Each structure stands twice: as structure tokens, then as C-alpha cells.
């Protein structure tokens, strides 16, 4: 089931071990510097109002999806629209690109923000801003949105992490405790790598080794009975608990029947979405699935149509599957990218970077179905209706639906205050 690997940024072994250690075991290379264990009673407070969504599946179209050829078509402006046609959807008066025929059937459960804007025009900085609500700075690593979700919503499942990232290079928990950072999964079909004890290591020998390690640690633990030190050994225990847990099955998509694999499509992204659904069923709070290949400077229309084939299939399958299982009510599915692509079609039939008026697609829990917020003008530069929505406000919108306290301040090790959605304000127009 190893398909289309080229489209995913596979992790090399060293990267994988480093990030798995960070996520699973809570240890970075410099554990004391990287993890700041913050004593916050708020960690257990789910929010100040009942949440309308509990889980988030964030589909990150890495490389900047062409909004004009997917969720932000503008039939009124043929000059910038190019050959892509619009099709009606299950929501009255809402049109999508012809590249998304299956997703169009779910539009009554979804909302689109068509006036997203970002201040960053380069992939890495813009992606950082989308994920953290803060500009990338040399002096600090901000937590990703998923890490904030993990931090602020308390522990839901005590054995598996609450924040999982499928595909792409994982961003970390920033200055939050490393356990809130995403658990990286490179290849969804492979499940959670390195989570089984080696074949030659039976329970007795494994137990013996653990006991020995504990014995060797004991005097150190006695001498330095500090939170950070305890957290270190607790995370070892958590990892072992996970290894022995039934919850590990959540990561194993081979347990799904063949028709499920077919439904989602056998692309890496489709299988990632299938895994995301399994994880949500197991009450993982935040799953991000990345899909690369959207940086269509050349040959935009063909590339987007190709990308959309498996994206449309996976997204619609995900929405359908969640709906049938009664999970869509509580799961918000978000699909967006770090920015959009130029309305002007370049000489190579491509579209370049364009931070104005790109789209965010939100569906399911907490979302006002069949809504479109905003409309861009004929040149695709300024909003004709509605206002620009910045990444922080998109994150604030999601956080609001999740019932997370937007004003909960977490301090970086140097004492600087940060909140889940920075200065963003929720866009209530798209919330139920």
C-alpha cells in the first residue's frame, strides 16, 4: 500500500527518531530548554462555554493550493478564472470548482471563508503563521495550534497523544511541554512506527531491563526530585503504557475493510484521512493531515485537477464516513493552505504566490453549514463583501468552536505571554 510517496515529505530516520522522542517521550535534545513545564490549573478547564466541536481534523494543503481552482472560484471574473468552471453544490447558491464534484455534495455541512489573507508570502513563514497564529521569530518557538488544543483541553485519552500529525515535517509544541507536541506519522499505512518491542525482547526480559533502568535512576531521582525530572520518567511510563495498550490499534489502518481503503482512495492523503478518522474515533483531539504538491507555478490547471482527484475523494469520504458514524457532529474538518495563488495566470500557465483572498473550508461540528463568508473583487485583490480574515482569526474561530479559552495566557520561559489564537477574533458568521 505504499503509493505516491513522492508527494509526501517523508521523514528520514534521524528526523523521525528526534521528533518521535520529542512527542512520545517528551524529550528533546535539550529537554530542560525545550520543555517548560508550566504549572497551570487551567490545563484542565475545557473552556468557558460548552463546545460545539470536540475534535479537529486539519487538512493542510501544503505548498499553497490554488483557491481560484478549488474553493474560491469567481465565475464573475473570467479573466482570472482561467479554464476552471464552477459547479453547484448541495447548498443553495454556493458554487465550487468542477475539480471538487464529491465535496460539493457535502457543502450543506460546510462553510467557506473566501477572504483569508496572510502577511507572509513565503511557504515556511506563512505555514508557521497559519499553524501558530504568530510570526516566525528567531527568539522563540511558538506552539502549533494542535499543541494549544492539547494543552488547553485537558487530557482526554490518557494513553495516546492528543495531537497527531500525519505526513509533512512536524512542527513542535514550542515552549509548551513537549507532550503537547504532535506525534508524527510519516506513512499512514505503516501505523505508529517503533511502537512494538523488538521480537527478541520478551516481556520478562523487557521487564528486567526496565527494572534495571529504574534502579539506576533511583538515586538520581531521589537527589533531584523535581517536576522536570519526574516528567521525564513519567513519559517513559506513558510510552510503555501506549506500547501495551489496545489504543495502539487506532493507528493500524490495516484493520479497516478493503472498501474503506477504496472509499478514501489509496493515495497517501486518502489513507491519512482514513487514519485521522480512526484516531478521532479513539478520541484524539487534533489530527493534521498534510498533502503537498500544490506549489503550481507551472501548469497550474492540470496539476490542480490531478491533486484534486485524490483530495476530493479523500475529503468527501472523510465527511461521509464521519457523518455515518455520528462523528461529524463533533468533529470540525478544516481544509486550508498557507496562502493562495495569483489571480493572474503566468506565462507558464501557472499561478504564483498570492496572500490575498485564499480560502478556508470548514465542515462539521460547530460550523454553520452552507455558508460562504466574503467575496473577492474581480481582480482577486480586495474583498468585495466581508473583510479579510487573518490566520489568527481562523484559529480563533476553530478554538471558539472547541470551547477553548481564547484569553488563557501561557508564558514562555522568558515570561512572555501567549494565547491560543494570538490577537485573532472568532468569525461568528461561519459558526453554528
Amino acid at each position, binding site marked *: 500500500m505504499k503509493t505516491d510517496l513522492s508527494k509526501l515529505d517523508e521523514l528520514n530516520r534521524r528526523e523521525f527518531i528526534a521528533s518521535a522522542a520529542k512527542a512520545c517521550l517528551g524529550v528533546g535534545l535539550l529537554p530542560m530548554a525545550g520543555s517548560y513545564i508550566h504549572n497551570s490549573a487551567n490545563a484542565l478547564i475545557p473552556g468557558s462555554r460548552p463546545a460545539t466541536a470536540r475534535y479537529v481534523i486539519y487538512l493542510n494543503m501544503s505548498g499553497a493550493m490554488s483557491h481560484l481552482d478549488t474553493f474560491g472560484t469567481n465565475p464573475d471574473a473570467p479573466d482570472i478564472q482561467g479554464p476552471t468552471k464552477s459547479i453547484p453544490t448541495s447548498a443553495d447558491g454556493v458554487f465550487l470548482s468542477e475539480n471538487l464534484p464529491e465535496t460539493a455534495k457535502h457543502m450543506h455541512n460546510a462553510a467557506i471563508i473566501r477572504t483569508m489573507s496572510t502577511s507572509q508570502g513565503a511557504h515556511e513563514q506563512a505555514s508557521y503563521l497559519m499553524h501558530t497564529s504568530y510570526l516566525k521569530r528567531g527568539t522563540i518557538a511558538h506552539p502549533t495550534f494542535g499543541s494549544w488544543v492539547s494543552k488547553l483541553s485537558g487530557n482526554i485519552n490518557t494513553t495516546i497523544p492528543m495531537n497527531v500529525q500525519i505526513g509533512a515535517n512536524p512542527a513542535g509544541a514550542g515552549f509548551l511541554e513537549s507532550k503537547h507536541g504532535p506525534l508524527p506519522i510519516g506513512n499512514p499505512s505503516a501505523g505508529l512506527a517503533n511502537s512494538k518491542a523488538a521480537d527478541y525482547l520478551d516481556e520478562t526480559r523487557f521487564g528486567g531491563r526496565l527494572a534495571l533502568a529504574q534502579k539506576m535512576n533511583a538515586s538520581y531521582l531521589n537527589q533531584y526530585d523535581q517536576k522536570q525530572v519526574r516528567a521525564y520518567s513519567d513519559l517513559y511510563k506513558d510510552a510503555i503504557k501506549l506500547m501495551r495498550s*489496545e489504543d495502539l490499534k487506532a493507528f493500524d489502518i490495516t484493520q479497516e475493510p478493503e472498501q474503506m481503503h477504496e472509499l478514501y482512495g489509496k493515495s497517501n492523503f486518502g489513507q491519512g484521512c482514513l487514519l485521522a478518522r480512526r484516531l478521532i*474515533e*479513539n478520541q484524539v483531539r487534533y489530527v493534521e493531515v498534510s498533502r503537498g504538491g500544490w506549489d503550481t507555478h507551472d501548469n497550474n490547471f492540470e496539476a490542480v485537477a490531478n491533486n484534486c482527484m485524490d483530495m476530493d475523494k479523500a475529503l468527501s469520504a472523510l465527511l461521509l464516513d464521519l457523518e*455515518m458514524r455520528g462523528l461529524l457532529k463533533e468533529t470540525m474538518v478544516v481544509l486550508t493552505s498557507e496562502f493562495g495563488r495569483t489571480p493572474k495566470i503566468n506565462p507558464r500557465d501557472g499561478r504564483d504566490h498570492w496572500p490575498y483572498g485564499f480560502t478556508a473550508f470548514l465542515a462539521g461540528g460547530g460550523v454553520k453549514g452552507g455558508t460562504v463568508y466574503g467575496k473577492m473583487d474581480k481582480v482577486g485583490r480586495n474583498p468585495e463583501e466581508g473583510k479579510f480574515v487573518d490566520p489568527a482569526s481562523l484559529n480563533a474561530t476553530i478554538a471558539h468552536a472547541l470551547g477553548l479559552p481564547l484569553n488563557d495566557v501561557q508564558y514562555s520561559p522568558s515570561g512572555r505571554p501567549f494565547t491560543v489564537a494570538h490577537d485573532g477574533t472568532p468569525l461568528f458568521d461561519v459558526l453554528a
Partner: protein
Amino acid sequence: MAGFRIIFFLCSLAASTFFSIGEEPFRIYKTSTGKGFSGKVLGYEGQTFFIQGKDNKIYPISFKQLSSNDQKYLIELASNGKIPKGDLRKLTGSPQSSESSEKIEDPEAGTSSDEIIRPASKPSPKLRPGSFFAYKPVGLGQDPNAAIAEKVGAKLPGPDEPIDFTSHVLPIMEERCFSCHDAPYEKNGRTIHPKAGLRLDSYEWVMKGNLDNTVVEAGNLADSYLYEVVTLDEEDDMFMPPKGGPLSPEQIDILKRWIEEGAKPSAGGANVADMGQGVSFHNHIFPLLEERCLDCHGEPYVKNGRTIHPKAGLRLDTYEWVIKGNLDGTILEKGNPEESTLVAVITLDPDDPEIMPPKGDPLLKEEIEMFKQWIKEGAKENPTDSFEMPKKETVSLVPIHGNNKESLLDQLAKRLNPPSKPQIMAAQKSGALVTPLSVKHSMVRAEFSSGPNLIEDSAIGALSGIKNNISHLDLSRTSITDNVLSEVKKFNNLTWLNLKDTSVSDRGLKNISKMPYLSYINLVSSKVSDASVDTLASIKTLKEVYLWNSDITERGIKRLRGALPDAKILF
């Protein structure tokens, strides 16, 4: 809920404007810090309002200290000329100041225009004039105008007039006895108890006496120790009051006559209704509720940053709430006192742990009779209301606006206290994760997120301690059987139930056919079949039913869709 509050406020405003021209009803005034104070407004001057508390004392309260709702209410009254203008303290200090005193007349009585408020008999000269404490509180009865008149002119009863405890006896106690025999109070961090364990601050206490004996024997002057000590020789060790000289002959005469007449409680006081016109909620029932019930059954308030909810989710601070009852049901059956829980709990044996009020003495026979009479007359807010048209209940579970489910949850939550930390810890012993829906929300979600395959039927037991607080119950992927649903059906306020990937079948599902608020049920990959259609169809509140991958057939679904036309049914 805000909408409801405003509507309720308008209703109470409308009611007060309509029914009482001269006398404003008792209501709860709130300060900006959230403290409640019950009283009726008598008048105002400048920014100071004079509010009579339930202890009949008049408190000058600065407009700015009051909550905005109260401010609105008072402005409304003042601008409509419903409350008189003028400083009551000044009025009492200078009866000649007729300019403003005219306004304190009772428009209903019509005859009282000559009666002006005179100074209290012995204003304390030590205090600065105008100080709150300098004002000797007038002992007022249930009608402030009559009471003010009584204070002024009728302090001494006529020779043939029966002695009234509140208006005649209590003022004597207050003047000469309270300094030693009042209710216990805090001073410098210590509780000062009444001397000799004897309290004389209410009828009940006077009649109760102290540990030694009673001090008043009704109709028997010789055995009444109270009378004996005030009539002793002044040099006697036991002579009372020990300071300030003996009681005046008139005062002794009042005590004598009162005891001889049978030491009766006040006839016209707030405790016992003058039922000539029928029992009125505001004049008769509410003062009693306020004195004996509102400590526990009042409006929720904030203390040390925590919201204190009324006990048993029962509020008795307004007519609407009294009629509404709590989650267990209404507390009174209009016209039928015997069937009313309210009457049942106040008439229990005094040793019964369930008796209300749980503290202090049981209600007096007269008071109980008053409740019974009130209910018999139809438990009306005003005696003149017709029984056939009870006041429309403003408290309703039908949400006024907004998202139905959220409003329902909030309304359910309003009637419950949030579970305490130990309660949540106890519930989590089941292996469940129990989290409030939001900060300080009374409703919680219980889910088995960690190792659900290890969860068996026994786990539900630990949750029953907070069963009314659980609105969301997630049993998906657990190893529970049908038996668990016979427990789940007791979770009255459940709105959301997830039984996905369990072995639950028709037999178990039958149990929950009567759940009152259930709106979401997930039976994906369960064992339910067409036999469950009737069960599901009987839960009319259902909005979403998920039946995919269960044993239900297309025919069953068709029948269910017919029975629940508004619900989203997926299979």
C-alpha cells in the same frame, strides 16, 4: 437565559406597576458586588433610596451601590412618582417639615394625609444626626404606611385594644432587652451569645425561653418569669433590666396584658396572614419564605469566586420559581395542599431528617395553615387573580432564542449544582473521564477514552453519584452489555448518548424509551434491529439517530422516519 431574565424583569416590573400604586412589593435588591438584599422601597432623596428590609428597619442605600437592574427599577418608580421623595431620616427628625412629608401619605388609605412620621421615641443622642445608626428603626408591620402610623401614634395600645406582639411587645424588648438578649452576633472575631442563653428578639424565642425554663407562660402571669423579673424590687439581684432603670409602668402594663391575653403571636404581622382578602404571595407567603427558606433556596450568588446554587436546585425567591419547582417536579399542586410537596415537607415530624426548614424551629401552625390556605386558593400571586387563569409561567424549558441544544443544556444546568471535585473523582473511579461542558457548567460529559475495551457494566455504578449532571455519555467501544441501560435510564438529563461499537441490542435499548431530553443517540455498529424502532420512536426529543452498520433494516428505518419526521436518521 439573558432574554428570559429581561422578560422576567419586565414581568415583575409590569406586575408591580399594575398592582401596587402606593406600596412597592418586596423584591431582592442586589449590590454591584452581587450581594442580595430583600426589601421594599419606601422613598428616596437625591441618590439615596430608603429601603425597608425584612427586619422592618429602613436602610438608606446609595443608588450607585445597586445593580443596574435595580437602578432601572428604581428610576422607573421614581420617574412615575410611585415612591415619595424626601429624606426619611430628616422627616422623622423634624415633623414640621411638611413640604416633603405630605408625599409619604398613603394614597389608598386617603385618610392618613395628616399623619406624618414623628421621631422615634428615644433617638440615641450620642450619635451624629443623620448617621445611619442614629436613626431609630421603626418597628413596622406588614403594611409600611399603617406601620409608620402605628409607630408614630399608636405605640401605646388603647385600653381595650388587644396587645400585638410585633407592634407593642417587641419594641419594648428592642429598647430595653436587646443589648443583652439579642441574636448572637460577631464582634472582634468572637461570637457574642445572648446572656443567660435567652433571646428575646422574636416571638418564637421569647416563648422558648432558655435552658432553665420558659420565661413566659401564656395566660399565667404568676408563672411568667419575664414578668416577675421586671417587677422585682430595683435592688434585687435578679431585677431586669439591670441598667437604665426599670421599665415604664406602661411598658410593664403591656407585658402584663400580653401575657394575660394568652401571649399570642402578632396577629397582623408578616408571620400570619390576614386572610380576609385571600392569601397574597407578596404580602403573606414571600416574607415567610424569605425568613425561613431563602438562605438555602435563594438566587444563585457568587461567593469566593464560586457560584453557590440553591439547594436541591429549588429556588423560592420569586413567585415564578416557587410555582416552577425543581427538577423533581413542582412543589405545589394548585388547589390541593395535601398533594403539595411543600406542605408535606413543612408538616413532617420535627425529628424527621427531611423536615423543612432543616434548621431552626418548625413553622408555626398558623404559618402552615397560611401555606395550605394559599395553595387551596390556587397558589395565586395576588388573591384577586382568578384561579382559572394562573399567571403564565415565565420559566420554561422552551428556549427563547438561539441554538436549541445549547439553551436546553444551559437551562438544565441552571437547575443543578455543578458536581464537586470529590464527586467527579468518585465518578472517575469507573475509569471514565468526567469533564464539565465548560468552566463551572453543571452538566458534565462522561466518556471512556482510555482503554475502553476494559470497561464493563460495573463501571456505570460509579457514575450514578452524579447521574443528574451527566448530559453527555459516551460508552462507545466499551465492553458493556444491555444491562447497563437499566442504569442509564436513570440519568434524567442525558441529551447525548453514544453506544457505537457496543453489543447493545433491542433488549437493552427498551430501557431508555422514556428519557426526557435525549436528542442524540449513536447506535452505529451495535446490535439493535427493527424491534427497536418503537423504542426510538417513543423518544420524541430525538434530533439525530445514527444506525449505520446495525441490524436495522430499510423497512425499520422507513417506519422510524415516519415516527420522527424532524429527526436526522442515518443508517
